[in-house]
């Protein structure tokens, strides 16, 4: 092994310029491959990150306006979800797939007032399970609990930025608001908790117990949205069928055409994730193909240079064979040289590529774009993992072997007598 390394070192150091030029082609190929993969990962991480606040297998349903006439009603009718829909979903019919149903009241726009400050929020009545499904991250205090529901307590959970706005001009910290009474419209609520707000959860809403809000609104059985988690739905097809099944049941309860897509809005995150994963795989494959094609030009370069090198060294191989080198030994020497050049320069390219990904992370990765209602990152953590590095290493070794094989076979077939004549 050490002899092989010495042999390679002596030939490579004897042809510095040639080696450097060849190496550059390989480095460049790998560099581009890593940059492409890094950017692709960043794009995907950004998508995923922006939807990270939600439980992956949750479904949210809310009513829309009908777009088709049905059962004697004309189109353009508002479908309002009610308690019957919630009990249908939590009932035996869908118990195989639906785990945890949590209805909410429709949001009610109120002014929250504390002291002299007021903030307009949408006050939604929710059940304790809501915070799990929609991942409401508490920063202080607690979320709505079952006792709130059963006793119809008038507690309220607000966002930290709502709290800050309410405390403007005072010396209080947001957490000091816990236990304080706020005026909300013509009611008063005590603050039980604060939840984190960020770019994707702007805090324009506040939460109160579902049962309390139902009484306050006085609109009987009507609901805003129904949120639930699913189980046992793994494929895209299963999710689509499931959406179809429960959707048409709810629609027919409200005398809407079961095929009317606009009468009922269904947001199945599992389905969204499955589709996104598919898109991600396609993107990743595409990037790999692009990168590998770039690398191919590097391989051709190495192969070409090795061919020239073999031609130049014909005499040397003749000498080696005359003093007893077997064809296999020559073959091994050339392939090892090719793999070494490819691997070393490939690694340089890979490190530079990872560096470029870091730079991307520090610059573009910190930027976010306003998309109207919220801000999203374009790239999030645009780097490649260890597995990609290992795959690339393997790829380099294979590439080097392929690049070296043809020249090596040529070298191993050199006839010593002809090679010695070539002077």
């Amino acid at each position, binding site marked *: 092994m050490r002899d092989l390394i010495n042999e390679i070192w002596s030939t490579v150091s004897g042809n510095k310029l040639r080696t450097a030029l060849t190496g550059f082609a390989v480095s460049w190929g790998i560099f581009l491959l890593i940059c492409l993969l890094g950017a692709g990962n960043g794009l995907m991480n950004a998508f995923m990150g922006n939807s990270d606040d939600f439980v992956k297998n949750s479904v949210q349903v809310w009513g829309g306006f009908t777009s088709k006439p049905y059962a004697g009603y004309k189109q353009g009718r508002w479908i309002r979800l009610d308690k019957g829909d919630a009990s249908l979903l939590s009932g035996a019919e869908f118990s195989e797939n639906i785990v945890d149903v949590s209805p909410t009241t429709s949001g009610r726009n109120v002014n929250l007032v504390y002291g002299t400050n007021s903030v307009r929020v949408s006050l939604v009545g929710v059940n304790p399970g809501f915070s799990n499904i929609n991942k409401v991250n508490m920063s202080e205090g607690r979320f709505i609990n079952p006792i709130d529901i059963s006793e119809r307590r008038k507690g309220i959970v607000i966002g930290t930025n709502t709290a800050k706005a309410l405390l403007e001009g005072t010396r209080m910290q947001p957490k000091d608001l816990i236990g304080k009474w706020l005026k909300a419209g013509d009611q008063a609520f005590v603050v039980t908790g604060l939840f984190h707000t960020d770019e994707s959860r702007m805090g324009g809403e506040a939460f109160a117990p579902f049962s309390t809000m139902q009484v306050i609104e006085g609109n009987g059985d009507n609901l805003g949205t129904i949120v639930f988690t699913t189980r046992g739905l793994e494929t895209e097809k299963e999710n689509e069928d499931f959406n179809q099944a429960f959707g048409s049941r709810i629609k027919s309860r409200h005398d809407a055409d079961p095929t009317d897509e606009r009468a009922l809005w269904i947001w199945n995150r599992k389905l969204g994730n499955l589709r996104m994963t598919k898109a991600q795989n396609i993107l990743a494959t595409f990037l790999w193909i692009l990168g590998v094609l770039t690398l191919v030009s590097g391989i051709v370069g190495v192969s070409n240079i090795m061919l020239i090198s073999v031609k130049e060294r014909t005499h040397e191989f003749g000498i*080696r064979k*005359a003093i007893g080198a077997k064809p296999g030994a020559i073959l091994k020497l050339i392939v090892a040289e090719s793999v070494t050049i490819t691997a070393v320069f490939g690694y340089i390219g890979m490190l530079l590529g990872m560096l470029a990904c870091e730079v991307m992370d520090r610059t573009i990765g910190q930027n976010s774009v306003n998309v109207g209602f919220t801000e999203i990152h374009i790239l999030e953590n645009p780097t490649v993992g260890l597995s990609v590095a290992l795959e690339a290493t393997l790829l380099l070794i294979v590439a080097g072997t392929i690049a070296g094989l043809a020249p090596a076979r040529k070298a191993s077939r050199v006839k010593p007598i002809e090679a010695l004549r070539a002077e």
Partner: protein
Amino acid sequence: MLIELKDINKTYYGAQPLHVLKGVTLGIERGEFVSIMGASGSGKSTLLNILGILDNYDSGEYRIDGKLIWNLSEKEAANYRNRLIGFIFQSYNLIGFKTAVENVELPLLYQGVPRKKRRQMAMDYLERLGLKEWAGHYPSEMSGGQKQRVAIARALITKPSIILADEPTGALDSRTSVEIMELLSELNRTENMTVIVVTHESGVANFTNKIVHIKDGMIGEIEANARHDASPFGAGGIMK
């Protein structure tokens, strides 16, 4: 009989077939110091290539130590060359990017001898040939005589049965030529090494104990040269 050639024929098939060796029959005993002499085109280089297992022959029989050398695979041929034959070439044929000692130990590398032992043996041979101080030098830093002595060390290191020297003094001045021939002669005398020198110079052939003349692909006169007076130009010198 160490080397037995029986009715060796060799034809090069080009635009015009060239019958280079026409039934060569020759025997060389162990420990002989022989020269094969002939003008260019006489077939002496072809004969040397066949002796060195660098080339095939068309018909006949070639045996080294009783082993028939016929239809060998490249691998077997390489193995025989490595273990049986030490080559000395006119143009030294050292590898330019390797130091003297690395060149000398190269045949042992192909035998799979461990690195330390290889280096030790190579240093021993270089020392014997008076080149210990030059072990770390590259061929380009040495004189012709030194290079040829490195090549001789490389030929000797595998303790071969035969030393084949192809115009070993061809690129050397007359004084160095004498030194090299005396070295070969000494190897033959003190170590009983079989040495075959191919040359067209009678002065070189004169150092050997037996001169085989080859002409037009056939063995001509074989003279014993025990008194080393075959050179028409006088003993002790090589006419250049």
